[in-house]
């Protein structure tokens, strides 16, 4: 494969070609070939920076290949492939092009060696991904997409502002480790934080992911947030603040997920919670912790995609992803159910599943560095994960009360995509060294110790027992059709209300003022007209006598002046 600067280019070019490719099958094959080609462009390359040039006195580097970016490049390519395979049935050009552009932008951003390139692709992910939401083509999806886009572009412009300030401070646009020292780096941090769904900045995630198309959500779940994790890992490793942000992120979504009815939104909360683990890893910043973050991002992309795929397959067949409308589907879609359970066990970090080998890196790192309460929070969060992703998703979809859906098993290509993903989840869980071998730092860690396995099983199974008890006693909260308020209430309800209040005031004042002013103006014009209009004293034809009077007046005035 020739060296072409950035793998994003492959995706961009393909996105230009795809709309014109017929027939559909050929197009799908081309689509699937794109991630493979993209991967090939950097697969065998030695580490280094490629695609460098000078643009307006700035040093641009399109592709920086090192251990960190390589892992993310790899998993992004993989995710793109799986998502496209899962979307084999989609005939919508918009979605196909958007997926390519989105994945390409994600890869481009991961490989960006400088902040300007990062910004370009950062915004690229925002723009491309919104089409995956809009492509659902409903009123609700349109509105959600607008909100999503504004948040995402907001992140981009804050990043841009940060970059500008950073450039002016340091004279460089290289993307490397920076601390929270100046407004510039704070702005960049905030921009990353938005995409990473920091607490209070997180609602775009829960808002958008349930609104996207079935395949779109699978794609969405892979790139944006993990790109942010990558950016944080690159720019802010060891930033203490991140530990607490991350710990908070692991905890609060748990409660919202527990009462959420829309299963795709449950997964979005769960995604948020998983991101918390990664952010904590970045915040701790030791090699072990960073390894944990990278590994967890890698595994998480896979199992979260798997979960979204399985819920998506259900939605594809039944038309809904709401817990209150689902149940008993194991009878119709047993394979999907199995894949879903694999995903659920992975995310819950059962031994032999991928979550187990990655999450424990972060937990160990937090314990190693003596962050007891953070560690405790992560353990609590692990129980929470089991609750909403490990149990709730498969239970309410495939078991629980039978909602009566009698549908076909998911289509073959979906099953294939899920199967591959599930195999990867189990494979990584069973052979952790596969993953550990490509992590940025050398790994000296054994996940499978007796203590670890037993304690983890205790934690998970006792929690499962609690679930069983609660269900049997009827104390488990029922699934009800509802929406739950979250921080988005502030900008979907409070802010519009406040704004319309302000607008009302401004408008009222404006009207009042303009009425007065216009009244004055009108009376002024009327006065002018009275004086100057055709019948006005100034325009009338005056009798000679009064003209002479004027002469006398003027003469008198001038004479008086002359005598002063």
């Amino acid at each position, binding site marked *: 494969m020739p060296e072409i600067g950035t793998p994003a280019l492959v995706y961009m070019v393909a996105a230009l070609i795809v709309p014109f490719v017929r027939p559909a099958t050929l197009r799908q094959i081309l689509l699937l070939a794109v991630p493979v080609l993209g991967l090939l462009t950097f697969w065998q390359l030695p580490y280094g920076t490629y695609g460098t040039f000078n643009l*307006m006195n700035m040093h641009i580097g399109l592709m920086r290949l090192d251990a960190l970016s390589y892992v993310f490049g790899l998993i992004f390519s993989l995710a793109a492939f799986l998502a496209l395979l899962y979307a084999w049935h989609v005939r919508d050009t918009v979605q196909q092009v958007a997926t390519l552009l989105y994945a390409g932008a994600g890869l481009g951003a991961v490989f960006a060696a400088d902040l300007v390139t990062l910004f370009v692709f950062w*915004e690229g992910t925002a723009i491309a991904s919104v089409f995956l939401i809009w492509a659902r083509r409903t009123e609700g999806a349109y509105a959600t997409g*607008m909100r999503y886009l504004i948040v995402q572009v907001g992140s981009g*412009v804050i990043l841009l502002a940060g970059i500008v300030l950073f450039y002016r401070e340091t004279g460089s646009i290289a993307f490397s480790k920076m601390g929270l020292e100046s407004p510039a780096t704070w702005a960049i941090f905030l921009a990353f934080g938005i995409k990473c769904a920091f607490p209070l900045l997180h609602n775009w995630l829960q808002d958008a992911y349930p609104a996207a198309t079935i395949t779109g959500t699978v794609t969405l779940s892979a790139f944006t947030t993990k790109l942010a994790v990558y950016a944080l890992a690159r720019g802010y490793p060891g930033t203490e603040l991140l530990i607490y942000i991350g710990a908070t992120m692991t905890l609060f979504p748990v409660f919202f997920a527990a009462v959420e009815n829309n299963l795709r939104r449950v997964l979005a909360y769960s995604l948020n919670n998983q991101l918390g683990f990664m952010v904590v890893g970045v915040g701790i910043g030791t090699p072990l912790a960073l390894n944990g973050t990278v590994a967890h991002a890698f595994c998480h992309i896979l199992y979260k995609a798997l979960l979204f795929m399985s819920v998506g397959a259900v939605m594809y067949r039944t038309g809904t992803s709401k817990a209150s409308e689902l149940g008993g589907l194991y009878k119709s879609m047993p394979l999907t159910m199995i894949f879903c359970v694999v995903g659920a066990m992975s995310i819950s970090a059962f031994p032999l599943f991928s979550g187990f080998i990655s999450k424990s890196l972060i937990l160990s790192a937090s314990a190693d560095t003596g962050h007891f309460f953070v560690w405790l929070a992560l353990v609590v969060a692990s129980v929470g994960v089991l609750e909403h992703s490990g149990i709730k998703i498969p239970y309410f979809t495939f078991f629980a009360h039978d909602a009566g859906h009698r549908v076909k098993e998911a289509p073959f290509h979906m099953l294939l995509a899920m199967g591959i993903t599930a195999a990867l989840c189990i494979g990584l869980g069973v052979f952790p060294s596969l993953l550990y071998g490509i992590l940025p730092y050398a790994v000296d860690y054994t996940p499978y110790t007796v203590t670890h396995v037993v304690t983890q099983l205790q934690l998970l199974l006792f929690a499962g027992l609690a679930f069983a008890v609660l269900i049997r006693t009827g104390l488990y909260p029922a699934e009800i059709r509802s929406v739950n308020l979250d921080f988005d209430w502030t900008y979907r309800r409070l802010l519009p209300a406040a704004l319309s209040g302000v607008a009302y005031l401004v408008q009222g004042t404006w009207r009042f003022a303009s009425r007065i002013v216009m009244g004055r103006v009108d009376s002024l014009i009327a006065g002018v007209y009275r004086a100057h209009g055709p019948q006005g004293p100034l325009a009338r034809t005056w009798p000679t006598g009064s003209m002479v009077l004027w002469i006398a007046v003027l003469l008198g005035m001038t004479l008086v002046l002359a005598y002063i």
Partner: protein
Amino acid sequence: MTDANALLLALAIPTIATFLIAASGSRPNIRDGISVVASIATFAVVLRLLESIMAGARPSVTLVEVMPGLVINFSIEPLGMLFATVASGLWIVTAIYSIGYMRGAHEKKQTRFYICFALAIAAALAIAFSGNLFTLFIFYEVLTLSTYPLVAHKETPEARAGARVYLGILMTTSILFLLVAVIWTWNLTGTMEFRAGGILEGNIDPAFVPFLLALFAFGIGKAALMPFHRWLPAAMVAPTPVSALLHAVAVVKAGVFTMLKVGTYIFGIGFLGRTGASEWLVWLAAATILIASIIALTKDDLKARLAYSTVSQLSYITLGMALANQMGIVGGAMHIVMHAMGKITLFMCAGAIYVAAHKTKVSELDGLGRKMPLTFIAFTIASLSIIGLPPFGGAWSKWYLLLSAADAGQLVIIGVLMLSSLLNVAYLLSIPARAFFAPPRGQMAHSLGAAASPSKGWEEAPLFCLVPICLTALGCIALFFAVGGIYEYLLSIPILPETAP
């Protein structure tokens, strides 16, 4: 052909074209052909000049001495050359587009339209090439007058009222403020010449600088600085090609170009920066950016929304001047190009929508994207460019304006620019998003599937409309990648006084 002759030729071609167009009024095909050929010829000459300017030539021609010491003089410097290139280049596109639009919309009095159009371009070029403030003022007024018939083209009561507001505000501001400012400058300095580093430093009590600047800033009504922006939305009664070329490119850009030119060559940005005289203008421009965006959000009429967007975007350029540093001038000048390319596309799209679907309201566009995909794709691209997102040209001008704000230490302005981007997203991107993805009104309640049904075939505007739209949309992308050259070129705008030999 010497540079000086080329300069005169560039001005002469559109002027002569007016006569030819008038003469061939009875034969529409020949008439429209002349207008296209003239635009291409003008652009060729302008390009030829551009080459010379980039090589360092500074041609200058003095036509006539109007009053002792006051001459009509044309001299080219990089900023003016840039404006001339943009205006004449986009004239070609619009000339082609006009054919499709005017015939498609069955407009009357097309001959008068083309005459005034060519005249307006000639005036715009004359403004671009003005060698002194006096010349610039003269052609500034000529431009106002030559576009008046275009605005009033439809001759309906609304058109008359709109044209009245247009003329009223532009004339009022230019006579009441700009002319006074020009004469004051003449009184102070005894010269009208555009000189690198400005002519005012040392000739004016620094306490008066903000006032003189205010006279200029408000006097240049074409820059649509609030509260003198009303003419721009009012001018939207004009046929769309007029809105496209004149109110996205030639007229409004003549305004902000004058603003940049006055800032650079009359005040001198060094002088402005040292006296802090433009500080208030920074805030006024920022306020205009935000308020106009918010108003745009509330507009349902497509062209009105675009007009307010233009008001907002023009203030970016004013802001660049007011920030008074080199990056501001570079950013402002670059925004002339980037915004022109984006906004002309948007207006032409609005026109195409009108011609093909007879829709003028944003709320009527739901589902239209499937019938006019190319138009709306172009609209999306141009919107993204205006918002300032990569990989579209607008990103770079915003980048330099941000750098300028950073250099000036104005963190709040950075915030304003960011907020403005978000508002742009809200009022611009929502249009194609609705067109493509919102279900047609009334159907949304029950048929989620209906929206996804395949299109019933394209119903695009005539080819004469469509091709220019696609060209300018591609231009938005091309500008992103071509920015290096533009940047190098813009650095050649002299901002420091030339050292005395």
